[in-house]
């Protein structure tokens, strides 16, 4: 097995046993990037020198006998909406094309302390608004399972990098599905932690009450190891939770007997691709055979989640994105008056989807519409939270499909925003409720595309989600799922 094909947990072992050096590990991923990145376009900025530099520091410290973190020397890719000091951070937007953050996000600082080399900043939908990476101002990323298809989004570049062996781990961000949906479309494990579990300091804001940084990985164990690094209270983000962080890896070997599993009726819908639902049901059958108690549960408010989300998220975005005015940072279009400058800068600097969301949000918050739209959406959010609270009185976890279909084709939905929004239909209510939500691979479709299954637990029960994911991995025994990347000129790599 080549180095770049290893999981993060295996790399950690190889490094700790000194069977490989971090420089060798990083070089293996850099070689892989050189070979296939031109076809997949998962990065916006590459940082090979930084990565090798960190790797050699880690190698020297290890050689000196220092006790290092298990992930020291294991490289990572980071979504390009997470601030990296001195390193361009674009949010895949023209308006931040040349923005150099003057500080590190808290998660980035932590990764540096641990000694994880950064391979680069990954492509995404502009300002994390989208479900395919086609809204990137630079270029779309391609799904390694089929280059004609989208990898999902908005953390699509992070998913592509991990799926194709260009990085063993990645950070993404999830507002309404932006980690789970691309993880599902690329056959990966994607965790949106409980709101407040991971610091958002330095994550460029889209919708502050929903944004959450999380992990994209090949396995549940890899996700647990990375969660151990990034979770916890942060003085610089007053919405972080002060509850102690468990060692997430200890949950992985636990059994699932008597686990109460609720199958969300709305998320195994007859309207979905039947193969997607069948794959979910097959995994549920496996849980049942192994002693889990499975029952169906209806969350009727799921149908209203999309409406509430597409008022709340754009409203918060319209406010958050007010800062891009050409004064303190970013693109500036010039203008005679300050108003001209603001409007021209924003008109030329933002792409179509970002403009759409700013318009929806501005409308929903404007005089005369506030009560009927934004306030009503916030009340529906309360009702959705209550519906979850009631469900978690009966069940330990809730399950369903992550996405209604496997990866769709590039250009298929880009001209129809509403159809694009519907690809996150299963992900949105978990975000509104603020609960942890995990997408894991459920199987491969007859068309050769991965499909995903979403597991949801009550706040701070990430360990429970990882336990079930780990159990299914062991039972099925075919992870990690790896595509053969078929090159357009022929051949597979």
């Amino acid at each position, binding site marked *: 097995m080549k180095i770049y094909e290893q999981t993060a947990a295996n790399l950690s072992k190889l490094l700790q046993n000194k069977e490989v050096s971090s420089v060798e590990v990083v070089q293996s991923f850099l070689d892989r990037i050189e070979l296939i990145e031109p076809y997949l376009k998962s990065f916006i900025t590459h940082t090979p020198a930084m990565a090798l530099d960190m790797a050699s520091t880690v190698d020297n410290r290890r050689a000196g006998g220092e006790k290092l973190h298990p992930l020291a020397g294991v490289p990572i890719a980071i979504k390009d909406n997470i601030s990296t000091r001195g390193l361009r951070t674009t949010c895949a937007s023209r308006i931040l094309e040349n923005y150099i953050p003057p500080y590190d996000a808290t998660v980035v600082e932590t990764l540096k302390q641990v000694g994880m080399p950064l391979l680069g900043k990954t492509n995404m939908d502009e300002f994390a608004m989208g479900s395919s990476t086609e809204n990137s101002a630079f270029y779309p990323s391609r799904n390694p399972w089929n280059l004609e298809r989208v990898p999902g989004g908005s953390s699509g570049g992070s998913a592509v990098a991990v799926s194709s062996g260009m990085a063993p781990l990645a950070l993404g961000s999830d507002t309404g599905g932006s980690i789970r949906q691309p993880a599902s479309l690329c056959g990966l494990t994607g965790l949106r932690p409980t709101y407040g579990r991971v610091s958002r300091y330095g994550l460029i804001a889209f919708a502050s009450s929903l944004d959450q940084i999380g992990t994209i990985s090949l396995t549940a164990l890899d996700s647990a190891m990375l969660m151990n690094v990034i979770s916890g209270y942060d003085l610089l983000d007053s919405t972080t939770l002060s509850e102690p962080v468990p060692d997430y890896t200890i949950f992985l070997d636990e059994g699932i007997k008597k686990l109460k599993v609720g199958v969300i009726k709305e998320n195994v819908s007859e309207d979905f691709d039947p193969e997607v639902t069948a794959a979910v049901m097959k995994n549920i059958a496996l849980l049942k055979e192994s002693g889990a108690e499975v029952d169906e549960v209806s969350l009727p408010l799921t149908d209203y989640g999309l409406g509430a989300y597409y008022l709340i998220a754009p409203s918060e975005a319209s406010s958050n994105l007010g800062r891009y005015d050409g004064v303190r940072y970013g693109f500036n279009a010039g203008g005679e008056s300050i108003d001209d400058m603001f409007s021209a800068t*924003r008109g030329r600097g933002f792409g179509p989807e970002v403009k759409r969301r700013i318009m929806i949000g501005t409308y929903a918050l404007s005089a005369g519409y506030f009560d009927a739209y934004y306030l009503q959406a916030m009340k529906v959010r309360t009702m959705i939270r209550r519906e979850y609270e009631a469900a978690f009185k009966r069940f330990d976890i809730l399950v369903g499909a992550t996405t209604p279909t496997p990866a769709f084709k590039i250009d298929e939905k880009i001209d129809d925003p509403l159809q694009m929004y519907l690809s996150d239909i299963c992900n949105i209510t978990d975000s509104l409720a603020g609960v942890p939500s995990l997408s894991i691979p459920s199987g491969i479709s007859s068309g050769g595309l991965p499909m995903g299954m979403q597991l949801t637990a009550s706040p701070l029960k990430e360990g429970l989600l990882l336990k079930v994911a780990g159990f299914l991995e062991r039972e099925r025994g075919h992870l990690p799922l790896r595509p053969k990347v078929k090159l357009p000129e022929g051949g597979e790599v």
Partner: protein
Amino acid sequence: MAIDFSKEVDYVARLARLTLDSEEKELMAGQLSDILDTARRIQELDTTAVEPTSHVVNLPAVLREDVTMPSLTLNRVLQNAPRRQKQFFRVPSIAGLNSEEVEE
């Protein structure tokens, strides 16, 4: 009932300080109308006596001691300024004066 959004687009774009060309406005009117039709479905729900959720974490106000802490240097704060003059961000006139009058 669909909302005719074409009349609203100019007004909302002005509120959002967003220059849109005529093609964008036309496209936007149709798309926003579709999206809001879907979003408005939440108005079917009876939310009488339901408190709004603005935030899922119900934290009390977070306080700290009123002491100075290290912050970014002026140079780093200004490093991304598209237009800068000494230690200031430079912008077009906001008081009806022309820029020469406020030059120094």
